[in-house]
């Protein structure tokens, strides 16, 4: 826990430094019409760096030596986190590739997760993976008129 505390405090101080750098570029003083753009971020950054130093010293002096996360407890966390990342990539990968759209990606994600983690019956997996995206499609696209990223399947249905 102590190491994580030290690392986070250091990262926050670094964040403060980045803000400070940009604030200096924008001007931190008094402009023609009051405080310049960098004024508020500058003082935020200065305080953040000070506070991070305080947290750093606190952790150094009396941080508990307990591990931040053990290997076996990290596994379930990654088991949730990685499929979510996969779902986002399937929806619309960064870069020039086109994705499957949110609804189809959601179908794969839900089905995969149900089967892999929940070991649900294949019939339930297939049924829910179809029904849930279809219902969400109608709720959001039709009822609330909020367009979601769409892919070739929606194209094929004419949306």
């Amino acid at each position: 826990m102590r190491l994580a505390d030290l690392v986070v405090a250091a990262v926050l101080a670094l964040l403060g430094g980045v803000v400070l750098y940009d604030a200096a570029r924008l001007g931190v003083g008094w402009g023609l019409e009051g405080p310049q753009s960098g004024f508020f971020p500058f003082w935020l950054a200065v305080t953040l760096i000070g506070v991070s130093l305080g947290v750093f010293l606190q952790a150094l002096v009396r941080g508990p030596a307990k591990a931040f996360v053990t290997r076996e407890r990290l596994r379930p966390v990654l088991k949730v986190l990685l499929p979510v990342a996969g779902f986002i990539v399937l929806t619309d990968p960064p870069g020039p590739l086109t994705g499957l759209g949110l609804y189809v990606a959601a179908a794969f994600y839900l089905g995969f997760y149900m089967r892999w983690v929940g070991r649900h019956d294949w019939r339930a997996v297939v049924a829910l993976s179809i029904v849930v995206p279809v219902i969400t499609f109608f709720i959001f696209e039709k009822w609330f008129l909020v367009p979601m990223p769409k892919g070739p399947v929606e194209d094929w249905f004419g949306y």
Partner: protein
Amino acid sequence: MGLENLLLGFQVAITPTNLFIAVVGITLGTIIGVLPGLGGANGVAILLPLTFTMPPTSAIILLTSLYWGALFGGAITSVLFNIPGEPWSVATTFDGYPLARQGHSGQALTAAFTSSFVGAFFSIVLITFFAPILAEIALKFGPPEFFAIQFLTFSSFVGLGGGNPLKSLASILIGFILASVGLDIVTGQLRLTFGFTDLMKGFDFIVAVIGLFGIGEILLSVEEGLKFQGARTAMNLRVVLDTWKILPRYYRTFIRGSVIGFWMGFKPGGATPASFMSYAFAKRFSKNPERFGKGEIEGIVAPETAAHAAGVAAMLPMITLGIPGSPTAAVMLGGLIIWGLQPGPMLFVDNPEFVWGLIASMYTGNVIGVLMVLAFVPFFAAILRIPFAILTPLIVIVCAIGSYAVHNSMIDIWYMLIFGVVGYVFKKLDYPLAPLVLALVLGDLAENALRQSLIMSQGSLTIFLTRPIAGAITAVAIFFFLLPAITPWWRRLRGLPAAAPAPRET
């Protein structure tokens, strides 16, 4: 005179059509409130085009009912899943979720809805009778008073939050820094974007809330080996009546929450700080502060009462002055203009049936609302019985949709994931998340108030101390900031043992 006008209003609000519209609005609003990311403002904006063909009074009843519904709905996911549907229901998760985990979700929801109703009702009564006087007070608020109020809100996190004050302060600062990313609306300069176009529109608090609380909580729960399955809820009339028997005990919390909420409701974003402030005060004045955060009913009563009192009070400056007190009220104000009405004090003179119909509909809407949500609680509690491996992806999918819907941009879904990891790490290291979100929500407003105040005083910070209202508020805020430093010293002086570290509220 007030009563006469109110009667006129009720004649408008209690027509079968308008009652039906209220029911529809509350149903839609509750659903919107339950879905994280689809807030009241969003819902009102989406429905606004549908109201152009309706008479203005019916239209405003539909939109305000949607707003009451969203206010009620926000509590449901907070209690059942620890995912606040709205920023003002963040504080409701602190005790609502632990109670649900202990199998008392029925009790928690009943307390939440009842408190919402009490807070809302208090504000409606005040709006009815004291609107002109209170509007006059709100008129005197300039930028320095506004900034002082913000300062007070954040000082209460550091001073009354009970955790590590340095980490609370760090959270607040990170929130403000995230809020300053993007276009500086005063000078038109780009801040902290470093040439990335995606950073130009900044970070939206909805995405941050969804990531930090929604995704972060899922990660934390699976690490602790907990499944989402709550205890089976016995939710029936009996639970409701039993809870109602306990609630009068917290009359002080109800009154305090209502007053805080109503007072804070004037200013933009008031419901969220009001809910946190009310929670902090309830904890401070409680005989059992150590029970807060572990499933204390009072910890639900305090924020819900204040949030709803504030949510309703936010309508007051909109109808009396034409200044919206909340984002949702701002959208409604846009509607008013489209319907051909002139917002502001003249509305009372020119369109009394509209103003008083609206005020009367606040009574009917909230009565219908509380009855409806109480009746449908078993339906919401049934959501708890969905297996974990289905519920997790469902929540993630809805969270992703909510994040995307804010700006129709993919990058927000990635932000959601990043905020999720940050939320997980921060929660483990005891950095409170609530002040971060609040600072992100209020960042622009606070900065503008600060800059305007400094322009007024030509750069002197003494403006926050020399103006009477701002000065009094600032003094209290400074006291709260110093409280963590004073308390150990004071305890030693009085010969008391050093305080045990209070449980974190997020």
